[in-house]
């Protein structure tokens, strides 16, 4: 049995390296993207073998699914002639190659010099897990112990959306009609994807899953709908859409502000030191720690891992 597992892991590692090499070296852009998606799926499998199912879920949803779809969409938007052209084979460049080899060797040395069982912060997380309101340590760290950090990333996403909107006010129309089959598939699949995202978010409290994975699934659903040429109704794209994308960060800031105003001691203490600084302040049931993964805009949370 052990031999089987070692063999499988070895094949997986070799397959990953081979796929990465092929994806980079392949002159055809489309083929490169397909290889990249296959690489993401094998990478998810590797994370499962490393017993990190949270990362595996994120890798499958973001690395393979969402990024793959975005790359394909970008390829479709490239000039058709440019997309049809294959990249010229670049000559071997010794400078960057040497740099890569050095960096790879450094990384390898760093990994080899790690102590086998690093203590990390696992003990602290386990000790405080009861206060966090969830039983999954990864979710506890992401949404509770460093909740400000995670949730304020929504503001970063909002800024990115603002930039995208100001650069590209008019999203491109689809070139060819999607066809009845794709429309039908989306009609069946989109509700399932929304449900799956809600399930991932809910399950994240006690099992692998959580807001990032749920957001990735929602984001993939959105990309799928865009690829099929679905667009929001014009009467929804104005104020309602803007309201929808600001309500999450806005609500979070409002709650945080009310929380800080209600407890002067907590105001002005940064997110990193907050939990340790004030014992009276460690209320895991407080809305600041618990509410926002749901009310924030999860589709946006997907864009950043």
């Amino acid at each position, binding site marked *: 049995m052990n031999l089987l597992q070692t063999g499988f892991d070895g094949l997986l590692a070799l397959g990953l390296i081979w796929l990465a090499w092929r994806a980079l070296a392949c002159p055809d852009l489309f083929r490169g993207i397909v290889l990249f998606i296959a690489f993401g799926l094998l990478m998810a499998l590797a994370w499962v073998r490393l017993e990190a199912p949270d990362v595996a879920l994120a890798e499958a949803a973001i690395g393979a699914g969402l990024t793959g779809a975005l790359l394909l969409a970008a390829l479709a938007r490239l000039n058709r002639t440019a997309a049809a052209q294959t990249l010229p084979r670049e000559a071997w460049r010794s400078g960057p190659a040497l740099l890569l080899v050095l960096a790879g060797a450094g990384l390898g040395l760093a990994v080899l010099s790690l102590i086998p069982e690093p203590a990390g912060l696992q003990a602290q997380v386990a000790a405080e897990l009861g206060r966090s309101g969830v039983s999954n340590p990864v979710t506890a760290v992401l949404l509770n112990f460093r909740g400000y950090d995670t949730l304020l990333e929504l503001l970063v996403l909002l800024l990115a959306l603002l930039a995208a909107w100001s650069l590209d006010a008019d999203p491109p129309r689809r070139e060819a009609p999607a066809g009845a089959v794709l429309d039908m598939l989306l009609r069946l699949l989109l509700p*399932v994807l929304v449900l799956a995202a809600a399930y991932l978010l809910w399950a994240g409290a006690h099992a692998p899953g959580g807001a990032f994975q749920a957001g990735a699934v929602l984001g993939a659903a959105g990309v799928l709908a865009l690829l099929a040429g679905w667009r929001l109704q014009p009467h929804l794209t104005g104020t309602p859409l803007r309201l929808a994308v600001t309500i999450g960060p806005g609500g979070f800031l409002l709650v945080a502000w009310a929380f800080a105003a209600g407890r002067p001691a907590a105001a002005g203490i940064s997110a990193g030191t907050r939990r340790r600084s004030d014992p009276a302040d460690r209320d895991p049931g407080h809305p600041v720690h618990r509410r926002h993964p749901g009310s924030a805009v999860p589709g946006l949370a997907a864009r950043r891992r």
Partner: protein
Amino acid sequence: MTGPDYLSALLLLAGALFFLAGTLGLLRFPDVYTRLHALTKADNVGLGLIVLGLALQSGSWLVAGKLVLIWLLVLLAGASVAHLIARGARQRGIPEWRR
């Protein structure tokens, strides 16, 4: 091993056979349409057999139901994507293989 174990071993082996045949077809068949034909067999029947074999081993209706759901989703996506690829190939004027 008991009866259900033998049955699920049989189902898993049959499923693996379908995947092997589908992969061979994907690699060896002459054009995109015949390759799609081979691939959908592996996805639909092969995965169905493997899901049945695993569901027998799961020992819980909940897990078995989840496995069957995964199979149904793959059926839906696989059939639609095969259709889309074939349609795209026809629109680009890729001819069918003739002996």
